[in-house]
């Protein structure tokens, strides 16, 4: 068991219950065939597939596999049921099986000898691993960047420019009476968002649940989420900026040209006036915005406009705004990199102090511009998701990859570690999309090391190779 596992073992064990527990609620609900003698139940396990980080999942575990994930959505079920033990070596160096120690040694050599190394990914691992990875970036004078830069990185830039009027998902659940999803499709990306937090729950100040809430969806296409909306506003593609500023103008009672508004947003002025009236009349409004906003032309300017609109609305009522974060611990990556360096992503530590400049120190850029000469990719798959120039350059430099699953990135890595899965095999902490830290309750041990243990090994060896004295000496 890894070092971290030892620290939290007691807490985890309290949640692991033997099937013979008479008080186990599952004994009453599960059929005898489902709770066989060689199974155990892990209650209140945490799903780390998406940013909802649902921590109420009851797992039925049989040996090295999970056979049932009660309360999990379609994505959570696929997450839990498909993360058994991969029958692959824990480490491959240039495609040849190697020991983990050999992999750590080679990884440390690659990173220590590089002139402009990149550490990237980190949104699907624990905050404990994120902390160690950030430290390694500091030792090697490299760049630390996370998948935030290619999801809500523009929103991170906007937060710095405009600020964020925010709240927890618990407040949304208990208070939200006008819920707006903008460029976000939670029905497919966060399937329990509606039922657990934003639309269906009966809350303290919305006792009738869905009946007390109005749901508005703003999108360029009629997504599955749109079908759950009271009002669906299909806007012209790439007009998010214009829509946000139209709403801001109407909020200020500025007279607008109806023809221009319809031409630029795709919808008549009356529609936007109606929405503004509803926003002002709400008791507690929330805008959840997604990558339909941040990945489209305008990017951080789109996010800024929506955040500024939210700020403006607080002259009339309580209104908040939240990015709908995708990966299970991408929010943790922002938090950890920020509390270690002062900036949330795209941080250059080459001069011995942190510098932040999206577009210059972000992974998509340093790869597409062919600047990085080595990389370490943790829990991410840029060879599937990055632009072609970035992918071509990554494939041309020595890099290390860590992932529980085989991916295009692990296949092309010089050193590839098959690691244990966070939340299923590995304990630790993740941050929900509203910055609430949640503990993990693993279901079974893995023969593969955690990325935390591998990173600790690389951290130690890098410091030896670079002759960096241990802390405190």
């Amino acid at each position, binding site marked *: 068991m890894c070092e971290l596992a030892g620290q939290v073992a007691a807490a985890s064990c309290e949640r692991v219950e033997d099937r013979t527990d008479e008080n186990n609620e599952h004994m009453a609900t599960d059929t005898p065939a489902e709770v066989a003698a060689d199974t155990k139940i892990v209650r209140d396990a945490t799903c780390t*597939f*998406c940013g909802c980080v649902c921590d109420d999942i009851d797992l039925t575990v049989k040996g090295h596999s999970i056979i049932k994930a009660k309360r999990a959505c*379609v*994505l959570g079920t*696929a*997450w839990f*049921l*498909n*993360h058994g033990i991969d029958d692959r070596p824990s480490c491959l160096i240039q495609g040849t099986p190697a020991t983990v120690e050999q992999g750590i040694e080679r990884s440390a050599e690659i990173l220590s000898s590089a002139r402009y190394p990149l550490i990237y990914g980190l949104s699907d691992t624990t905050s404990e691993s994120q902390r160690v990875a950030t430290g390694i970036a500091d030792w090697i004078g490299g760049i630390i*960047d996370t998948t935030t*830069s*290619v999801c809500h*990185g*523009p929103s991170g*830039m906007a937060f710095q420019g405009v600020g964020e009027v925010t709240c927890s998902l618990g407040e949304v659940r208990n208070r939200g009476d006008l819920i707006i999803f903008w460029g976000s*499709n939670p*029905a*497919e*990306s966060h*399937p329990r968002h509606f039922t657990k937090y934003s639309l269906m729950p009966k809350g303290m100040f919305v006792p009738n649940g869905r009946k007390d809430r109005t749901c508005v969806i703003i999108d*360029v*296409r*009629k*997504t*599955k989420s749109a079908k759950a909306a009271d009002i669906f506003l*299909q806007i012209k*593609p*790439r007009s998010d900026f214009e829509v946000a500023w139209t709403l801001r103008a109407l909020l200020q009672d500025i007279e607008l040209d109806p023809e221009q508004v319809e031409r630029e947003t795709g919808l008549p002025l009356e529609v936007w006036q109606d929405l503004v009236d509803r926003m002002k009349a709400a008791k507690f409004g929330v805008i959840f915005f997604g*990558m*339909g906003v*941040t*990945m*489209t*032309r305008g*990017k*951080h300017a789109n996010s800024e406009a929506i955040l500024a609109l939210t700020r403006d609305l607080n002259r009339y009522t309580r209104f908040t705004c939240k990015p709908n974060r*995708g990966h299970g611990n991408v929010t943790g990556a922002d938090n950890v990199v920020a509390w270690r360096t002062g900036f949330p*992503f*795209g941080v250059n530590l080459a001069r011995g102090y942190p510098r932040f400049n*999206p*577009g*210059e120190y*972000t*992974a*998509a*850029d340093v790869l*597409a*511009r062919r600047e990085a000469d080595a990389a370490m990719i943790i829990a991410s*798959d840029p060879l*599937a*998701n*990055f*632009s*072609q*120039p*970035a*992918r071509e350059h990554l494939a041309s430099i020595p890099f290390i990859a860590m992932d529980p*699953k*085989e991916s*295009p990135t692990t296949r092309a890595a010089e050193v590839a570690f098959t690691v244990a899965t966070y939340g299923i095999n590995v304990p630790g902490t993740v941050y929900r999309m509203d910055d609430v830290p949640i503990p993990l309750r693993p279901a079974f041990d893995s023969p593969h090391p955690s990325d935390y243990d591998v990173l600790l090994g690389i951290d130690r060896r890098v410091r030896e190779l670079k002759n960096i004295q241990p802390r405190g000496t």
Partner: protein
Amino acid sequence: MAESFILIPGRTSKQGVGINEGKFGETYQREINVLQVAHEDFDRLGLSPGAMVRLTSESGEVQVAVEAAKPGDLPAGLLFIAYGDLSSRLMGGDTHGSGMPTSKGLDVELEVLETDSTTQ
């Protein structure tokens, strides 16, 4: 003859399930390798499910099989594809100083290579 469209790459729940099953598995590969075309455009272009088209952006070119979106789901002129290798090939490397490549709302030219998949 090529026609101009706007391409929206995005997430789907099937793609998410496929990621968990494995990126080299059938679920993921099938989901990222099919292009949804607005119902009206699908009919107007005389396409049938599985027919091949070529998409060309400022940054790349791919060939992909098509299917019709459900009526009303996509407006005419819009295309949808699940994030993956093909959508990445159409993205440019420039992030315009943001760290984020323009990954949605891509201008593409669509050229029909075959209207009927059974002619393969």
